[in-house]
Structure formats: C-alpha cells, structure tokens
C-alpha cells in the first residue's frame, strides 16, 4: 500500500497522537521523576538496556542506547534495584521527595563473588519486554566464539543466529529471513555503513575492540528505524574509558590491532581510537617479483570516538570510521574501496522526563579501479554513494507505563554510479554516468506502553517519503515482454532540485507482549518496511564494485510486511532462555534482473531491472544456557525463502539463492578452571540452491550448457556443516596487575570438510581438438578446503 501525500495522512497521524494521549491517564501532580545514567563502574561506559526497578511498586525502566533512564512515580522511599547482564545487582534505598538525578555505577560480576551472592533477578528481559525477533550479542560473547583465522568478527558471529543465513563462506553481508543483503540497515553509531566487509566479505569492518553493543532486529522493528526491509543491525561503539588510560591490542593472522582509550577530563569526557591493519601483503610477498615494488595488498580501518559531558543536561559525541581495502599490482592496475562515516550526536535533557538526541551524520562508500599504467592506454573508474543526514529524536517518559518516542530523519543522497575515462592510444573517452540525487524524509511516533502486569505493547507509525531529484534525466522505457531488456524510448531532463519522481509509504509497526506466567510470555510482532535504495548486484556474492541506486520512475521502492509470533520461556531461575518464533514475510517490488543483465556503466540500467515478488516463512527454535561453567546456545530454524520474477523460471516461484530450509547451530563455552576457556561452534545447513543444466548445445565448437526446463535454482548442492574450536588461555591473575594478556588458539573447519560454495559446469580445461568431442565436467568449488588453525595474542593495559 502506498500513499500519495494527501491531507488524509495528516489526519491519521493526528488521530494517532491524540489516541495515545487520551488512552493513557495523564500524569498526576504528585509524581516525582528519578532519572540518570547507568554506567560501568570500571570505565564509565554507559550501559544499554540496563534495568532500574523500584521494588515497592514493581515499576521499572530500561536504559536507552545512551544509558539514560527516567521513571516518574509518587514521592516516597523506595528500594531500587539496578541490574544488567554480567554485572552485580545494585541495590540501594532512594528517598524521592522531589525530582532526583541518580547516576548508577555497576560493577562487573567476578567469579569469586558469584559463588556467594544470588545473582540479580531481572535477567528475564527476553520474556518481559515487548521485543520480538530481536537478538542482542554481547561483545564478550562474540570475543569468546571460535573465529576464522582467530579474527573476532561481528558479522560472522551473527550468521550463527536463527533466521540469519549467507549465500556461502566468504560472501559479504548476511541474509535475514529471506531478505537480500542490501535489505539490512547496518548502523555504526547511527550512521549507515554501505559495505560492511573487508576482503570481499571474509571479515567485517567493525573493530571488536571499539564495539560496545550489537543488536539485530529481524522483525518487530520499532518505528524509529526505517529505510531497509529486512533487518536493523545496530552497532554501538564504546565511548572510551573515562576513568583511566586503557590500551588494548592484539596480533592475529590477519590483523594486528591497537586501541587506546582515555579520559579527556576525568568522568566528564573520554575518547577511544582503535586501528587495525592486515598483513596480507607481507604474506603475499613471495608471489611477487622485484619489479612490482608498487604492489600493495592491504586493508585497514580506524575507528574513533570522543564524548564530553558538558553538564548534567548536555552531552556530545563524535564518532568516525574510516576503512579501506587497497590492492595495487605494480603500476599497472589498482583496486581499492572503503567506507567513511562520521556522526555527531548531542544528547539534551529538556527535563528529567524529556530526553532528546540529535544526530548529524555523513556516510560514504566509494571504490576506484584503474587499469593500464600508461598515459596513452588506461582505464580509470570510480563510483560512490554519499549522504548527509539530520536525525532528531525525542523520548518522553510520560509515566512509568508510557515511553513516547518521536522523531524524524532527513537524508540527502548523492550517487555517482560510475565515473569512467578510457584512453585508447591517446584518444580519451569519458563514459561517466550522470550523478543522481535523492532526498529521503521520514517522521515517526512510537509508544512503549505497559497496560498491566501481563500486557504491554510497542506501537508506532512511520511515514517515509522519497524524492528522486534533479539535476537528472528521466528515462522512459518500453516493455519488450517478460524478462526482456526494456528499450529506452524517451528522455526528459530535470533541473537541479526539481522532483523527478516521489514515493511515500506509511509503515505501521507493532509488537505486543502477553505474560502467561512469571517466566513465560507470548509475543506478536508486525512491521511494514519500505526501502528506497537498492544495491545493484546480480552475482552470487556481492562484490565491492556493486553500486547503490535510488528508486526512480522505473525502480519502485521495495516494500515488505512481516508478521511474527513467539513464545518465550525462561527456566531454572533464568539459567535457560528458550523461545519459539514463527514468521511470515511478504515482499513486493524486489529489485531483480533480466537474464544477462548489464549492470555496470550502463546509462540504461533501469531497462535491465525487473520487479520481483518474494515470500519467506519459517520457524525458529532457540535455547540458551546463560549461567554456570558451561554456557552456550542451540538454534534450529526451518525456513523457506522464494522469489517470483516474470521471465525467470517459467515465471513461477523459485527458491532464492540463500534458501536453506534446515539450519542448525550450536555454540558452547566452557570455563575450564581459572585460566582456560574453551569454545566450540557447530553449524549444519541445507545446501543452497543451484541451477544445473540438462543438456549441451554445440555452437561454433563450444559446448554451451542449456536447461531445457528453463528452471532457476532447480537443484540443491550438498549440505554445509562445520565444527570450529577455540581455547583461550589467560595467565595467572595477580591482583593489581596492570598488564593482562591472553592467547587464543583456534581451529576452523576442524574435520577438514570441503563444503561446497557452489557447483559449476565447464568444458574440461584442455584446448578443444577439432576432431574430438568436447568433454564437460562439474566442479565443486569450496572456499575453505582445509582446516585452518590460528593463534592470536591479545593484551590489555590499564594505567
């Protein structure tokens, strides 16, 4: 359902706002507000999602992404409990005579204390909050998991969660509940990251030393998030230790890392600066000759963040990421790509109950290719996407039962889909494509409401509007039948700032929790999402040269509806978390491609694209053991994801390239004594679909594969399974030691399985002989063909 911007919309919105105010009892005059921040006592980092609970009235609040909480209650004396996973519960008595500011500092739980004190009770957030289809991964957990070549990686770790798949080992990005990789909004401190990988997809751009918190929304996406169809990966960076200087670092097979964090003014402001660089160029040296002194093969990133508490009401943050993959072969050819993001945020408290944040960000992804070192014969090609955005948000803590969030976002995009200059024998041709411009605006309103002890809900509405702007050219195409390239028949040029095409969507969001008993709840989630940007990619794994393109008069925005239902239950005093979720997702206007589409440096690109439909459904079972010497989780997913595109697969539904009906993953950790931590992953997935030919066609001496049934993805390649192990060794802990280090030993793909990435077909590699028939073969291609051992060393220094 798409709406033109008509007066009826504002009526709906007004009605919605009024609805919230009239449905909730207004604040009584006697109430007072307790508010503040919850922080880690050791380094001053604010804690996201910590619970502050007042026992007497059984009301609580959860800290937001900036660690802020606010709760309005009648005056009196309360026992307050603050809890956060992995930290000791904080219990204190507060006397509330008037509005009070209270910053809480929590202490990380230590093994010694754990044995004596019964741990905090509010660890049942997964059951009691309204969030469905949401997964939070602590950095501590990610860091303990076995990793490819010992490199701790956020994106490879979330691929082990239910509902998340990938087209294969080494492929960039991830697929959530049937969505393609461009349907994930990857946010680093509120700024989108357009390409989240290094080295084509083997590693992600997030430096584990700089990341504080990772949260993935697969469904029940709150109204405050928008712009992508399938998921939100919200990565929050550390603020930097504001108590003392801390240096973290490590040496691994791929990267060496170093991060420094320190207070600028103690307890007021701090910074973190973290960098990584790869060694691949060192390892590749033996392959290169002396004449290739110009050769470069490396990737690196730099992450920095600083924050300052101006006063109790104002705090500012500045975060930046800069990363690059850089390949150069002699003076002949080069290829490099990378992201830069910069975000500035200002937290302002209008009152103890009205929290605001304004984010201004800039994000850019670009790449550059060059062939031919000579002035007379060369080809230079670059492309980029750049945006600037302004994003204000207000959170109003109306009363303990209602948290109202409203805000908006305005993003201005510039696309340079390809600047290319070819020089052939001194004659130069510029084959650059025109820049494109777009302006995306959205506003939203969301309320997190507790109706009673059993029933709470989060409902919201997002209105998004997209304006494809001049200066630009509008191409009008003529259809040539299903699956055929469209022919450009007319062009219209537009001045700078003129609207070429606009779209808008109303995106309702809802999640509901109904508590069945203290440890069991039933949740429902619904969201509609709209996406106006499209990553143009027709290859199995996306490549760094794939370009982002806006919706135009020919490319409609993609829209999806998802409904999910889940049962959440914790057992044995929250030692075990379990959940079952089912979902159904309906996709419309998916960006698909005609067969043989020509996607690069093509000004008539829109003629190569077609609209597809998609559907995905599944059931996800999840069980996690959170306490004890042995922890870990087990997840099993049955899911299907299908596409329908005119002209492909006889225009019938076919499985998408990442459709994996069965997916099992087991991750376990074992504390073996004081010094050793052991961990293991096991994954077992159905093989991905592939298209196999039936027949051969001989043409001009070549044997061309042919599928006489015109099928797409008609066969499934063998199942994928893999076991990884890791062991972390910590030296003896001496109290007061400033320098701590650990060794991590790992083996990836322990039992040496050659998991197929794909199976392809080809003529055998010999030169065909004129008087002999050409023989053909099927090849199983595995990205990892052996077990891969690794050793890395990490250290931490506290001043």
């Amino acid at each position: 359902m798409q709406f033109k911007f008509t007066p009826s919309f504002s009526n709906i919105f007004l009605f919605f706002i009024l609805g919230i105010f009239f449905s909730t009892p207004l604040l009584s005059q006697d109430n007072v507000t307790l508010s503040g921040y919850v922080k880690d006592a050791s380094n001053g980092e604010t804690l996201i999602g910590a619970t502050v609970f007042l026992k007497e009235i059984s009301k609580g609040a959860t800290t937001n992404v900036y660690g802020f909480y606010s709760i309005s209650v009648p005056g009196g004396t309360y026992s307050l409990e603050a809890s956060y996973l992995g930290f000791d519960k904080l219990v204190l008595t507060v006397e509330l005579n008037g509005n009070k500011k209270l910053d809480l500092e929590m202490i990380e739980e230590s093994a010694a204390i754990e044995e004596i004190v019964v741990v905090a009770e509010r660890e049942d957030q997964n059951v009691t909050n309204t969030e469905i289809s949401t997964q939070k991964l602590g950095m501590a957990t990610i860091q303990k998991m076995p990793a490819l070549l010992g490199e701790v990686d956020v994106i490879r770790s979330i691929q082990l969660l239910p509902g998340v798949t990938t087209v294969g080992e080494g492929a960039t990005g991830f697929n959530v509940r049937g969505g393609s990789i461009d349907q994930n909004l990857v946010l680093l401190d509120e700024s989108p990251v357009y390409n989240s990988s290094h080295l084509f997809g083997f590693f992600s751009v997030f430096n584990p030393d700089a990341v504080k918190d990772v949260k993935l929304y697969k469904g029940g996406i709150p109204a405050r998030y928008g712009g992508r169809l399938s998921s939100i990966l919200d990565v929050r960076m550390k603020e930097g230790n504001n108590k003392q200087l801390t240096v973290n670092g490590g040496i691994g097979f791929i990267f060496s890392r170093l991060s420094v964090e320190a207070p600028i003014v103690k307890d007021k402001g701090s910074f973190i600066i973290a960098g990584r660089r790869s060694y691949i160029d060192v390892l590749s040296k033996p392959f290169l000759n002396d004449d290739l002194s110009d050769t470069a093969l490396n990737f690196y990133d730099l992450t920095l963040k600083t924050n300052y508490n101006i006063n109790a009401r104002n705090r500012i943050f500045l975060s930046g990421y800069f990363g690059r993959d850089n390949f150069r072969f002699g003076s002949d050819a080069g290829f490099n790509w990378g992201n830069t993001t910069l975000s500035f945020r200002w937290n302002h408290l209008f009152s103890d109950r009205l929290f605001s944040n304004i984010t201004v960000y800039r994000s850019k992804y670009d790449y550059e290719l060059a062939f031919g070192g000579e002035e007379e014969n060369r080809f230079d090609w670059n492309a980029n996407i750049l945006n600037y955005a302004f994003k204000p948000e207000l959170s109003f803590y109306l009363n303990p039962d209602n948290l109202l969030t409203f805000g908006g976002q305005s993003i201005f995009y510039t696309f340079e889909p390809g600047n290319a200059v070819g020089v052939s024998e001194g004659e130069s041709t510029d084959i650059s494509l025109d820049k494109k411009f777009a302006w995306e605006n959205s506003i939203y309103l969301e309320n997190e409401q507790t109706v009673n002890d059993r029933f709470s809900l989060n409902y919201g509405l997002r209105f998004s509007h997209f304006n494809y702007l001049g200066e630009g050219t509008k191409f009008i195409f003529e259809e040539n039948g299903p699956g055929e390239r469209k022919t450009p028949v007319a062009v219209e040029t537009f001045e700078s700032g003129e609207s070429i095409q606009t779209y808008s969507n109303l995106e309702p969001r809802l999640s509901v929790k109904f508590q069945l008993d203290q440890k069991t709840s039933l949740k429902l989630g619904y969201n509609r999402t709209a996406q106006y940007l499209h990553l143009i990619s027709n290859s199995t794994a996306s490549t760094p040269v794939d370009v982002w393109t806006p919706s135009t008069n020919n490319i409609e925005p993609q829209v999806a509806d998802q409904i999910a239902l889940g049962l959440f239950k914790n057992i044995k005093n929250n030692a075990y978390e379990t959940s079952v979720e089912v979902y159904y997702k309906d996709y419309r206007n998916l960006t698909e491609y005609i067969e043989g589409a020509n996607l690069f440096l093509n000004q008539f690109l829109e003629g190569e694209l077609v609209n597809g439909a998609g559907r995905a459904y599944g059931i996800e079972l999840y069980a996690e053991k959170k306490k004890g010497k042995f922890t870990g989780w087990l997840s099993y997913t049955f899911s299907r994801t299908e596409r329908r595109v005119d002209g492909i697969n006889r225009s019938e539904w076919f499985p998408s390239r990442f459709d994996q009906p069965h997916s099992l993953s087991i991750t376990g950790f074992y504390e073996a004594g004081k010094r050793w931590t052991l961990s293991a992953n096991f994954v077992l997935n159905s093989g991905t679909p592939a298209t196999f030919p039936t027949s051969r066609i001989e043409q001009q001496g070549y044997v061309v594969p042919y599928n006489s049934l015109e099928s797409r993805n008609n066969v499934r390649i063998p199942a994928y399974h893999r076991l990884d192990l890791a062991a972390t060794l910590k030296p003896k802990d001496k109290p007061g030691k400033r320098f701590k280090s650990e060794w991590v030993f790992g083996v990836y793909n322990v039992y040496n399985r050659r998991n197929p990435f794909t199976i392809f077909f080809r003529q055998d590699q010999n030169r065909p002989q004129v008087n002999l028939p050409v023989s053909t073969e099927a090849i199983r291609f595995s990205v990892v063909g052996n077990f891969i051992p690794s050793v890395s060393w990490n250290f931490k220094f506290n001043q």
Partner: protein
Amino acid sequence: MKNIAFLLLLFSIFFTACEDVVDLDLEEGPVEMVVDAWINTDTVPQVIKLRTTAPYFSNQFVPVVSGAEITVTDEDGRSFEFIESDNSGDYIWTPEPGERFGEIGKNYALSISLDGKTYSAASRLSPTVPVDSITYEFREESLGEPEGYYAQFFGRDQPGLGDTYWIKAYKNGLFLNKPQEINIAYDAGPSAGAEVDGLIFITPIREAINPIVDDDDAPPFVLGDNIRVEIYSLSPEAFTYLERARIQLTLGDAALFAEPPANVPTNIFSSEATENPQGFFVVSDVSSLEVTVE
C-alpha cells in the same frame, strides 16, 4: 581482468579454496533442434550445421540432423542453397571462384525444412572494419604471466553506436578456441552502455588475441609463430549470444561472484509451438591480417 584473476588466485591460495570434479546425475529434458549457422563473406565454402541437444555430460559428438533442406534468401529474393554432405548434418554452400556470400547491408532469412516442419531465422549483414596492424613485444615474466612474446592488434570501430564484432585469433593456423578466448567488441569497448564509439579498440580487446596462459605456463607466442586475426561483424543479437555464451562457459572463473546460470537466447524459430530450437544464425562480414613473430 587478468589482474583480478590473479587477485582471486592469491586469495584462493590464502584461503585454501579448492575445486574438485564431482559426479552428478542431471535431470534430462526434451531433445531440441540446434542450428549452428554462423556464415560469412569469406571466399571459402560456408557451412551450416544441424544438430540436436544432448545430455550435458554425454561427452561425445552430438547427434546430427540429416535430410533437411536449407535455403538462405536475401531481401531481393536471391537464394543460396546449402547442400548436405554425406548425411553428416553439415550443409554446405560452395562459392564459384571469386564469389562471396552476401552483400553488406542486406537482410538474410534462413529457412530449414525438415519432415514438414520449418525452422527460420533472420540476420542483417553489417560491415566489419579492417585489421590495421598486429604488433608484438617481448615481456619478462610478471604477475604470473610467463616471459615470451605478447601481441596486440589495432583496428578502429566505425562511427555510429552499436557496431559489434567477434575478433578471432589464430596461432600457427590453429583457432584459439577456449571459452576464455572469446573476444567480442561492442563499438570499441567490451559491452553495450558505455559510449566508446569510433575509437581504436581498447587495450583489453587488442590484447585478447593472445592465447590464455595455461597451467603449463607456455608463453603466448615464440619466435617464428604465425599470428592471424580476423574481425567478423555481428548483428547485435549475435553479439548478445556470444556475450552470454561466454558468461555461461566461464561461470567457474570467479565462482564466488558468478551470475546466475541462464540459457543463452536463440534467434531460431520453429513452426511447431511445442519445440524450442536452439542455436544461432548470423551473416558476418570478415577482414583479416597475419604476421610472423620475428
């Protein structure tokens, strides 16, 4: 693109990527007629081959189709009969001395009659451009390429958008017939959509007349080798056919980033709605030049 291939090779070593030949049972589909009709204006006999599809792994000569009558007719009604030789499925038109097939700019219709059924196709004969020169140079070993002589040819695309060519190269009379050696040009560049009209063919096309370097690491050319280059004009549809055939034939070269496998579109039509004939008909103009490495 060789550099990209090298890059991928490097990662392959690093990540211990591997390729194994596997045995598979494939689905079988209906057998279809295959027409292999790429004829040109050269003075030699012109051959049209009729075959059928065969199971992909059959690994023997595909079945021939005998007993058909084949005629190619130009827009003025002049027709050329292709006569089958010895039930071979090869149908041949032999020019008189000095005669050439076809006239530049004319449209040609292929008509095949077999057992009361008709197969047809059409093609326009576009002009080609001359091979202006072939040069070669000696290069030291570099970036995984062995030392030896490396050649390039020069030629200039004719003015006007959408001229398409197939550049065939021969080493000592032997056609370089590996799928990776299919060298086609859209104007002076490798594909449509980029405006490189009327230029000298760009470097990657000029250099793609070298045999690809095999595992045996033999140099492309050595002293005394004969290098022959032919430029065939193509219809835009024939260009698409070769472009997409090359993609399908080389899907494994960068398997991580392969496009989805898909059938290559034909321009052959059958009078029978139940049939799905395959293959291609095109009439090309041709130019050539050869040199010896000295």
